[in-house]
């Protein structure tokens, strides 16, 4: 079968500057301009390195995207996956012309419309009807186009009764439905969808997935689908691109892409350290020094049996003499949902340890065995204080780990195979009785 390329992304790179834009900008600007008029290459383009947020780069410039190169075929739904900070959003922003690439070309055979975040440009004071027209126009529809699809949009969103009510009185679910409905009735050749499915109830999610399938199937339009939800990616797409640290890791079949993506997360070390105070993330009240995932024997480890306890050790510079610092952790599952959060202040000796002198705190949190479900998880780690609430540092998805069940019978699922529902899998107490039949 001959496939037609509708979108070609050729060697696209995007560079960002890090840090505070101080007076230096003018200096850099002048330097850049001076090089330019002499016909020399931009001096700041040479610097820059891989965009890995967990290692602190030496350069102030970072490549959010580096030599991205792939093709999208007409009528396909292409998945784009990657963890936070892998460059997904930057790529989408470039595709939707919100920002320009630093290098490279994007050639498109059709209009691109994006659902980067639905409901953009909704005005709370305007009614649903007025907002449909406004939002449609923002997305590039002409008035006659909107008029001809108006009834369909309203019906799809299921807001017939409230169409003349200001949007500020809508529930958040209604807003999302309305916004998605407007965008789904756009008729671009290429539709970019980013995380819309994270909101809305299950019924609407199915409706949205169905609509996206229609768009690509019957109407022959191309969809770029970006999501953390591996489930939805696998349901909707046959081909996917995996981005990691601003580079393309894999392009091809979705199953393999998902595997690559999950494996990549586990490739990282189970520990991360910052050597000097100056380079460590945080502020003058607290900075991270080391975060390690370890097993019960205090050995760094990133694969855990479901029955095994998991320890998260957070070591940080505690320089806060005014308020009492606390380390915090969040466990996030592969769908990007936060399972739970926990704080160092749960330790009974927490306030004793944090006397008013500065020092290095080591806080270890233990997640008991037989609590986590199987799967891949990431840990976000932060340091802050409460009353007043201040976050000194919060590193999202800092480390990744995997929990497995070898179904030998010691876990919650016993020897049962197949999928086991639930986001957590605590071992609960059961009381059993049996009365004999008379």
């Amino acid at each position, binding site marked *: 079968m001959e496939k037609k390329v509708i979108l070609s992304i050729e060697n696209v790179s995007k560079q960002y500057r890090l840090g505070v834009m101080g007076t230096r900008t003018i200096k850099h600007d002048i330097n850049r301009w001076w090089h330019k008029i002499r016909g020399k290459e931009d001096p700041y383009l040479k610097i820059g390195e891989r965009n890995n947020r967990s290692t602190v780069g030496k350069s102030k410039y970072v490549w959010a995207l580096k030599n991205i190169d792939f093709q999208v075929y007409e009528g396909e739904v292409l998945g784009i996956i990657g963890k936070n900070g892998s460059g997904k959003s930057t790529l989408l922003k470039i595709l939707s012309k919100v920002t*320009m*690439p630093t290098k490279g070309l*994007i050639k498109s055979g059709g209009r691109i419309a994006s659902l980067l975040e639905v409901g953009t440009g909704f005005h709370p*004071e305007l009614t649903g009807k007025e907002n449909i027209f*406004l939002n449609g126009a923002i997305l590039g529809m002409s*008035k006659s186009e909107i008029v001809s699809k108006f009834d369909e949009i309203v019906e799809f969103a299921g807001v017939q009764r409230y169409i003349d009510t200001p949007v500020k009185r809508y529930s958040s679910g209604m807003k999302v439905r309305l916004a998605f409905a407007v965008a789904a009735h756009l008729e671009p050749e290429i539709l970019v969808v980013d995380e819309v499915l994270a909101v809305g109830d299950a019924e609407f999610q199915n409706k949205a997935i169905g609509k996206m399938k229609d768009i690509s199937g019957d109407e022959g339009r191309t969809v770029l689908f970006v999501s953390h939800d591996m489930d939805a990616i696998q349901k909707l797409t046959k081909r996917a691109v995996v981005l990691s640290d601003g580079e393309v890791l894999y392009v091809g079949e979705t199953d393999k892409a998902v595997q690559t993506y999950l494996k990549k997360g586990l490739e990282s070390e189970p520990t991360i350290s910052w050597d000097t105070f100056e380079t460590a993330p945080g502020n003058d009240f607290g900075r991270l020094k080391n975060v390690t995932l370890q097993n019960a024997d205090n050995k760094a480890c990133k694969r855990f049996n479901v029955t095994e306890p998991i320890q998260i050790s957070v070591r940080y510079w505690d320089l806060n003499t005014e308020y009492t610092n606390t380390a915090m952790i969040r466990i996030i599952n592969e769908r990007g949902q936060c399972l739970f959060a926990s704080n160092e202040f749960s330790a009974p000796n927490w306030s004793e340890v944090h006397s008013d002198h500065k020092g290095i705190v080591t806080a270890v949190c233990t997640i008991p065995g037989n609590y986590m479900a199987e799967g891949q998880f990431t840990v976000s780690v932060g340091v802050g204080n409460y009353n007043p609430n201040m976050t000194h540092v919060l590193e999202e998805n800092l480390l990744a780990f995997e929990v497995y069940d070898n179904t030998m019978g010691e876990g919650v699922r016993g020897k049962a195979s197949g999928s086991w529902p639930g986001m957590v899998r605590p071992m609960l107490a059961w009381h059993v009785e049996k009365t004999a039949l008379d």
Partner: protein
Amino acid sequence: MKDKVKDTDEWLFIISPESNLFDLKLKEIWRYRDLLVQFVVRDIVTLYKQTVLGPIWHILQPLLTSVVFTIVFNGIADIKTGNVNSFLFNLAGITIWNYFAECLKATSDTFKKNENIFGKVYFPRVITPLSITISNLVKFFIQLCIFAGFYCFFYFQGSAGSLSIAILTVPVVIVTMGLLGLGFGMIISSMVTKYRDLVFLIQFGIQLLMYISAVMYPIAITVERLPSYISWVVNYNPLARVVESFRYMVFAEGQFSFLHIGITFVLAVIVFFIGLVIFNKTERNFIDTI
């Protein structure tokens, strides 16, 4: 490879880091004309849906300013306004000046104010300041009606001069003010994306600009009372010319020439295009720096 690769001219569009500085994207703006209409409708509808004070403020602000100016400039500083009632004279100046000032103020933080929506969807950004300039016309017409009311009142008292035939060119004056406000607004909004503190200077700058734009005095008085090395600031100020021309149209008093109108109009068009070029250049990457 089975893939059929398209020729370059078959692509609908190409995104590349290079761009032509003088590509004004007028075609694209035309394609998004429905959006322009929607934005204008939104601005007007929401202005009146929100507060009672909103619309009233637009009526009170010029009236109160005129009263204060009349007391200070005509009462204390003893500036003569000829046959025209001083209050009406000031109201005329403020009405036309406000249109410029409102346009400039509202467009000068386009990028900052719309960061959210600009960061997510693409449309020609220039639609936003353009829509502000147009919806400000509505506020201007409200103020113009107030002015007309007072004009009638003073006319029958014989202290409003008389309408000049030049009133036929009043649309040119309004467009000139709009283009100047829009043009400068676009230039400033582009600069604000880099040097954010600039926005605080705007309010102050507009205030200063008003004093050298003959809003509360006739141009002739500056030439008469001030040495020429100072009075040129007013005499050659295009804004002062526009204000003075507008007053001539309604009072048939003061300085007026079609040449001045023509020159200021051309100047306004030039400022607008410079603004458009700078604005278009900024919109490409501003989201990274703001």
